[in-house]
């Protein structure tokens, strides 16, 4: 049985979609769906949901490196089999949740998890730092300006205590995207770690013919920096493109469209830090993250500059903001000029918008605070 390469279409099954979720609901979930009354986080990483029926669902949330092996998943299954009737789930931020239907089952589960070294840290709930949403980086993608899993590991090691506690003014959502495509909620995160290129694409004239549709490459550039050109390859004149370096803002969209225009570079690439985004509509409307540190170098394996920058912002915020105040809400209340002062981040011209809707970010009032930026 199985796939027959000689006869690939035989018995082919397609378009069946995912299994119905109801097959995977733990019994307490299946029974009480739509009839939950309230919840409480009884300790970091442990939630109880109370149903109209009186039933309780106890959830133990566990941090995970999203990049994980089948071995590790088997181990999770072992745990779920031992404690949770053989069910588990993953959250929208790549944590793992083990659910039990009785308070008495919580401690044994926690003990089991704790017995397995640092593999299953319990936490990620409430006013703390939960798992970092991130992307591929050097493990799989072709356009990254930094790594993903490595940076995340370094940052989470440093912020670990905030994962296992709930001492912050509000939840803090950190995300990482390894390039401007931003495969993640980096554009709307409390703290965003963003891989950025800083060198314009090279043109691989000897490859461009065949692998690129030139008109697409040309029209891909939002700033019109890519123009038609001619070049000599092996003595023959070919049609190719050139880039007006002065107009390039390193978005990488041309490379997405044309493999002969690579832009990654060991010295050019690195990390920008954006802060103050949020997704929820709670209190204030969703906000975009704002660029506050335009560049930090790529320094594997532990990216100390990035780790330090993230930690610094987080801790200044933790010490200064009010209960329930997200980072962006805090920065807006105190004023962004104060944000830079309090976090001791030098303000650079790179933080001043000059893209499409830029005017709306200019300060068109006399209202401002004096900070150390004003000499």
């Amino acid at each position, binding site marked *: 049985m*199985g796939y027959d*390469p000689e006869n690939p279409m035989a018995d082919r099954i*397609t*378009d*069946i*979609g*995912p*299994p119905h*979720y109801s097959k*995977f609901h733990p019994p307490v979930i299946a029974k009480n769906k739509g009839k*939950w*009354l309230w919840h409480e986080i009884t300790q*970091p990483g442990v939630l109880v949901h109370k149903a109209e029926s009186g039933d309780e669902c106890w*959830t133990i949330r566990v941090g*995970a*490196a*999203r*990049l994980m*092996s*089948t071995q590790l998943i*088997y181990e999770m299954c072992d745990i779920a089999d031992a404690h949770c009737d053989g069910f*588990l*789930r*993953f959250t*929208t931020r*790549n944590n793992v949740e083990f659910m039990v239907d009785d308070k008495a089952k919580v401690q044994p589960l926690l003990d089991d998890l704790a017995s397995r070294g640092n593999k*299953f*840290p319990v936490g990620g709930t*409430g006013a703390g730092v939960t798992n970092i949403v991130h992307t591929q*980086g*050097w*493990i*799989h*993608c*072709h*356009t990254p300006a930094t790594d993903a*899993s*490595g940076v995340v*590991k370094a940052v989470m090691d440093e912020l670990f205590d905030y994962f296992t506690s*709930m*001492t912050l003014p509000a*939840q803090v959502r950190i995300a990482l995207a390894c390039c*401007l495509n*931003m495969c993640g*909620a980096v*554009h*709307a995160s409390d703290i965003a770690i963003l891989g950025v290129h800083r060198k314009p694409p090279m043109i691989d004239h000897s490859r461009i013919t065949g692998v690129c549709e030139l008109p697409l490459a040309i029209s891909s550039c939002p700033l019109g920096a890519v123009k038609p050109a001619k070049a000599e390859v092996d003595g023959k004149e070919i049609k190719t493109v050139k880039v007006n370096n002065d107009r390039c803002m390193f978005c990488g969209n041309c*490379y997405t469209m044309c*493999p002969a225009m690579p832009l990654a*570079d060991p010295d050019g*690439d690195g990390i920008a830090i954006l802060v103050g985004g949020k997704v*929820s*509509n*709670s209190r*204030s409307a*969703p906000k*975009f993250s704002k660029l506050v540190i335009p560049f930090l170098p790529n320094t*594997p*394996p*532990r990216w100390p500059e990035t780790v330090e920058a993230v930690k610094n912002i987080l801790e200044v915020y933790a010490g200064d903001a009010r209960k329930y105040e997200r980072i962006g809400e805090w920065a807006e209340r105190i004023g962004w000029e104060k944000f830079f002062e309090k976090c001791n981040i030098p303000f650079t011209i790179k933080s001043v918008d000059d893209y499409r809707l830029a005017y709306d970010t200019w300060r068109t009032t006399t209202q401002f605070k004096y900070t150390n930026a004003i000499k």
Partner: protein
Amino acid sequence: MAKHDTPLLDELESGPWPSFVTDMKRQAEKNPDCWDILGQLELSFRDKITHWKHGGIVGVFGYGGGIVGRYSDVPEQFPGVEHFHTVRVNQPASKYYSTENLRHLMKLWDKHGSGMTNMHGSTGDIILLGCRTEALEPFFWDLTHELGQDLGGSGSNLRTPANCLGQSRCEWSCYDTEEACHHLTMHYQDEIHRPAFPYKFKFKFSGCANDCVAALARSDFAVIGTWRDDIRIDQAAVKEYVAGNIVSNGGAHAGKDWGAFDIQKEVIDLCPTECMWMEGDELKIDNAECTRCMHCINVMPRALRPGAEQGASICIGAKAPILDGAQFATLIIPFIKVSAENEFENVIDVIENVWDWWMEVGKNRERVGETMQRVGLPTFIKVMGLDPLPQHVKEPRSNPYVFWSDEEVPGGFDRDVDEFRKRHAA
């Protein structure tokens, strides 16, 4: 035994957070190709640059998505990752699993692929990380035949829909997010598997304005639960909160001493619409002014609940920054019933309305939000056949540059300049 030295990666084995390096090394003991993943990643750590080639179109017969092709640019050094395609398996709604299902899926991946995964990808899929081209069809066969599971989306198609866990375990969900997600995923299998759009298109379903699946920020079509009537108040529980007998915000702030609960400061003063007040020890809400932001409910889950007349808002057009800057989705349908009873027919109508138009006017690689920006919100509202509402905008326009059409203006646009000159000498 390690095939390559990985001194840099080894540094990531220490520290309290789970180490993917340690994990991958363990996996490599079972699947030696993983040494080459580690080896190439170590090289990237050293060179500070990716070692994957650009793209590469691979897939399974009949599908235009679900696989992302990937080849090493240093295949001689790391033959184990010469081909390293990812498979996007469509996750079950809400991402609950039975261990039976999950073990079986992992077994298939051990058989056909690297044994490394991402649980889950940013869009929501199960990402199976790295296999050779030859393995794709066999894996797909086993996946469909043994597990009855299928691939998710990639390319210019409907991407794998995702949802917050909703009513399954959350008291606030205003509609059944997982049923909506599952139903529409099944309804649109063709659109998921066969790219026919100008560019990618994403659905996300959140049960309330907390938006735990980031729908407003990350999906072209966001369905976000809300209600139409009044917040349900349990005044007895309000008193318990005020008395300090129930922990605020479901215990989310329990790690720090923020002082005694202060309903005025923590709830009433933070309500964005200032529509709450105390009358004696009763909490009052002027529901006509409430924008259902969820804050008060978040803080007092035992005292306050969403209204009973539930449904959702539909917001359209979110996307990441490429090309014109990031967009949040724009509120297009303030309130709609979302129900399995009518098989989500009314939601489907909205979706197809958007698609019919976008597939016609959308340019290549133009997200629907960008098309909306290009034609303008007024045009979009018109082509969607909707009444313009003040709810569509934060504020009315401040520039006076209004378009009028010939028919709207008495006498129309055509005038005779000679007639005009008779009354107005030049």
